[in-house]
């Protein structure tokens, strides 16, 4: 279902063609990184730290190097030491430990051998002497007075800092006078919350194949959200010029932010360089969970004031995030900004704290779900205390265009109110809550981002077009590119071949993240198509013998007064005689990403004897700006929602005292399975983003923000017990119910 005020009349945008890359994927022919094998290829395996924090006194690889099938062994000594102020320092240290292992699972050596089993056996035979260091696992331990240092190279960002610290970042936003507002408020609710580490949980483990040739150039096939990112980070870690590396993007088997950085490629490259053979490096599931991702654990305090008639007057929050063992997690401002109500008084502080746990990575709207869980729980409690409808309270206070963001800058055109109204008017919300169940509501948003994209459009001699971009397609973006190109050029969407090219075949393009592919790369495609149409008009003018100004482009054909329309295919067929091949490239650094708001609603039951939650009905409403391919917009909403449901109910990292992950498998890291869920109903709201030619906002991030509080709010109404700790697993709910 889609809600749009005045939908424009597009021919292709907004339709649901079969995705162009779908056929290969349903017949098993799509090439993911682990599907590639090269002649003479070796297989590599890691040695990882069995300790949460330790100095590496010595590494002896001589036994391993002499074992059957072994062709090369690397340790940290085989990689250049970057300066700690280098922006790639943290990535480099995480790829391979130097001197100190910072978490249980930290890679400290790797072996390439003729079989994977031989490589694993040899890696296990590497002798390491460790000097154990204190292990800091939680935010509280890390912030305690006299806490041991997690990482001796860490310096706090954004504040004055003298020397190493466990503080990663401190961000503060404030306006007005919160103390005065709380002192005079009719009603104040204050709560503390915490959430566990969760993993992005993509089904495809990280994988790459690297072949370093005798000329020193590296061919890399990798699964990532951005192959130009793979090129630059791999080069930095190896101390190479980026131009030595060509990265070909494999199909990516899920990322969700977790594949916006690298782990494998420099290791495989060095092993390939040393052995003179291609090297394949594929993580096991256990390695994925122990040593990639996760999203930060968090603690927070939220205090909100309201007047008796439901005006929200002040908010004061403190958010703490365990960002892992290194300090390159950005985006905490996003966390604070989810307080998307018209608070005249506001004080928000977000703190990143280091712990001896895996370096964290982005996970759909990084840091926002944890914060929205806390804020939207308190908002719901205020609605209960004021006896107001939870949508009504939010509508009364929701931000609209021109209202300040938490950062102070006015919001551009946004669709928060439209989303709230769409849920209020939905069949779900207007239906009675089922007997024995309860209903919860929650909201969230994400700024989305722009960044750099490139696109090339080649018009082929048969009148088809190839649209080439540098954005790995993680959820259907190729179909979106084809739809926008079809709309611009006026030809059938199936006469367009969208593809993602390697780093040497398309212009630089930033990572597919922040819901930016359809927005930014889509804009590059549109710009390229518009340039192509200019050229087509010029060619048509030559063919028709008129001035270019006399030619207009209508429905895929050049039109001049008094002449038959000249279709694109006819111009393409005469490319040679009118000036040569028809090919254009466009690139940009996009600003104007449109924030995407979402409002969710959930009906659920709680088994008060076991603490188990059953979700009966779920509706996700989100402003897409414009849904280019509505099926894949719905898919983003549904996928994000279900990840949020997992985060709310059962997903969590369980560490032992030494930081060893006890549940490093899909058996015990419990992502939702099909039988846990109902259908996820969606309502796409379309409030076009004025900064995009088709009004696109981008939809990938926001869907994961509202579910945590949406479910907690329903649980609170079902049980009269407010759960402030995630996950709301059955043991935790039962314990909370039994606590008077």
């Amino acid at each position: 279902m889609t809600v749009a005020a005045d939908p424009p009349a597009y021919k292709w945008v907004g339709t649901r063609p079969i995705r162009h890359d779908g056929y290969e994927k349903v017949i098993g022919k799509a090439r993911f990184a682990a599907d590639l094998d090269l002649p003479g290829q070796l297989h590599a395996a890691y040695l990882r730290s069995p300790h949460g924090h330790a100095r590496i006194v010595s590494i002896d690889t001589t036994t391993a190097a002499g074992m059957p099938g072994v062709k090369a062994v690397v340790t940290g000594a085989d990689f250049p030491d970057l300066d700690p102020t280098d922006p790639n320092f943290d990535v480099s240290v995480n790829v391979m430990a130097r001197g100190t292992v910072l978490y249980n699972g930290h890679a400290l050596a790797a072996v390439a051998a003729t079989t994977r089993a031989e490589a694993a056996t040899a890696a296990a035979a590497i002798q390491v002497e460790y000097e154990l260091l204190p292990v800091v696992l939680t935010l509280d331990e890390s912030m305690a007075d006299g806490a041991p240092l997690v990482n001796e190279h860490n310096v706090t960002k954004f504040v004055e800092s003298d020397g190493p610290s466990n503080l990663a970042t401190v961000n503060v936003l404030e306006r007005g006078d919160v103390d005065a507002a709380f002192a005079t408020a009719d009603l104040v609710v204050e709560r503390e919350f915490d959430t566990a580490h969760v993993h992005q949980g993509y089904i495809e483990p990280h994988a790459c194949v690297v072949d370093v040739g005798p000329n020193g150039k590296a061919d890399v096939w990798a699964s990532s959200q951005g192959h130009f990112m793979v090129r630059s980070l791999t080069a930095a870690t190896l101390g190479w010029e980026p131009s030595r590396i060509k990265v070909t993007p494999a199909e990516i088997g899920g990322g969700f932010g977790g594949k916006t950085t690298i782990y494998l490629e420099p290791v495989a490259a060095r092993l390939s360089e040393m052995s003179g053979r291609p090297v394949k490096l594929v993580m096991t599931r256990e390695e994925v969970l122990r040593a990639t991702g996760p999203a930060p654990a968090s603690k927070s305090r939220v205090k909100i004031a309201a007047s008796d008639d439901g005006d929200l007057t002040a908010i004061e929050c403190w958010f703490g995030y365990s960002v892992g063992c290194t300090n390159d997690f950005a985006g905490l401002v996003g966390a604070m900004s989810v307080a998307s109500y018209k608070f005249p008084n506001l004080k928000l502080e977000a703190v990143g704290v280091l712990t001896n746990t895996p370096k964290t990575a982005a996970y759909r709207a990084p840091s926002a779900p944890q914060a929205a869980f806390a804020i939207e729980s308190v908002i719901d409690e205020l609605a209960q205390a004021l006896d107001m409808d939870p949508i009504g309270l939010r509508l009364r206070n929701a931000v609209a265009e021109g209202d300040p963001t938490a950062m102070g800058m006015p919001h551009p055109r946004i669709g928060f109110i439209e989303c709230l109204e769409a849920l209020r008017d939905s069949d779900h919300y207007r239906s009675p809550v089922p007997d024995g169940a309860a209903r919860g509501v929650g909201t969230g948003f994400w700024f989305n981002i722009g960044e750099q994209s490139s696109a090339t459009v080649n018009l082929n001699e048969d009148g088809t077009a190839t649209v080439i971009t540098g954005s790995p397609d993680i959820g259907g973006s190729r179909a979106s590119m084809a739809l926008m190109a079809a709309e611009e050029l006026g030809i059938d969407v199936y006469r367009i071949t969208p593809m993602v090219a390697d780093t040497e075949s398309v212009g630089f393009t930033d990572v597919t993240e922040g819901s930016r592919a359809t927005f930014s790369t889509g804009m590059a495609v549109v710009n390229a198509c518009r340039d192509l149409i200019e050229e087509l008009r010029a060619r048509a003018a030559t063919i028709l013998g008129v001035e270019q100004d006399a030619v207009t482009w209508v429905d895929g054909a050049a039109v001049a007064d008094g002449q038959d329309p000249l279709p694109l295919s006819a111009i393409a067929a005469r490319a040679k005689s009118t000036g040569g091949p028809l090919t254009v490239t466009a690139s940009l650094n996009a600003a104007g990403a449109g924030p995407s708001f979402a409002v969710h609603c959930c009906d659920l039951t709680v088994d008060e004897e076991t603490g188990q939650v059953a979700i009966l009905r779920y509706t996700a409403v989100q402003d897409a700006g414009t849904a280019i391919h509505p099926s894949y917009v719905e898919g983003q909403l549904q996928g994000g929602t279900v990840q949020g449901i997992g985060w709310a109910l059962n997903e969590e990292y369980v560490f032992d005292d030494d930081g060893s992950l006890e549940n490093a498998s899909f058996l015990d890291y419990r992502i939702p399975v099909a039988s846990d869920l109902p259908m996820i109903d969606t309502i796409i709201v379309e409030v076009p983003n004025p900064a995009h030619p088709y009004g696109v906002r981008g939809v990938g991030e926001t869907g994961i923000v509202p579910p945590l509080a949406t479910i907690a709010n329903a649980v609170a109404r079902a049980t009269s017990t407010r759960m402030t700790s995630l996950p709301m697993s059955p043991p935790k709910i039962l314990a909370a119910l039994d606590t008077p």
Partner: protein
Amino acid sequence: MSRTHVTCTVNGDPVDFLASDDTSLLNALRGELGLTGAKEGCGTGDCGACSVLIDGRLNCSCLVFAPEAEGSDIVTVEGIADDDHLHPLQQAFLEGAALQCGICTPGVLIAAKALLDANPDPTETEIRYALAGNLCRCTGYDKIIRSVQEAAVRLKGAAR
């Protein structure tokens, strides 16, 4: 490491290969036979991405030793379409946008085929439980379930 000569049928074709005794059928299919449709998502039978049919029964090929395949009849995702047409499940998945990244898709299609082969008219709940062994992280399962329902309708129509 001992190696065993294995003779079996894969997607209707007689094949033979040499496999290390400790290797999985999944590795043999991917490495020895070049059938990379089945994926390894976990290697422990928890994700279902490696699902294949062995003698008509749904299995995780990562939990089968390759030599066990001797004499068996194996169907992978590469073998469910006929020469001219996609299997109705494949077609319904395409039309219903039931895949995003596509890594789980081969296993989901095989598991759904096993279900519909045994139960041509499953309820939504039966579909959800039949696919509970196939993890998907992109879709939230909604469009997968709907597409299996649609394929079931089409298969019944074709059988009529």
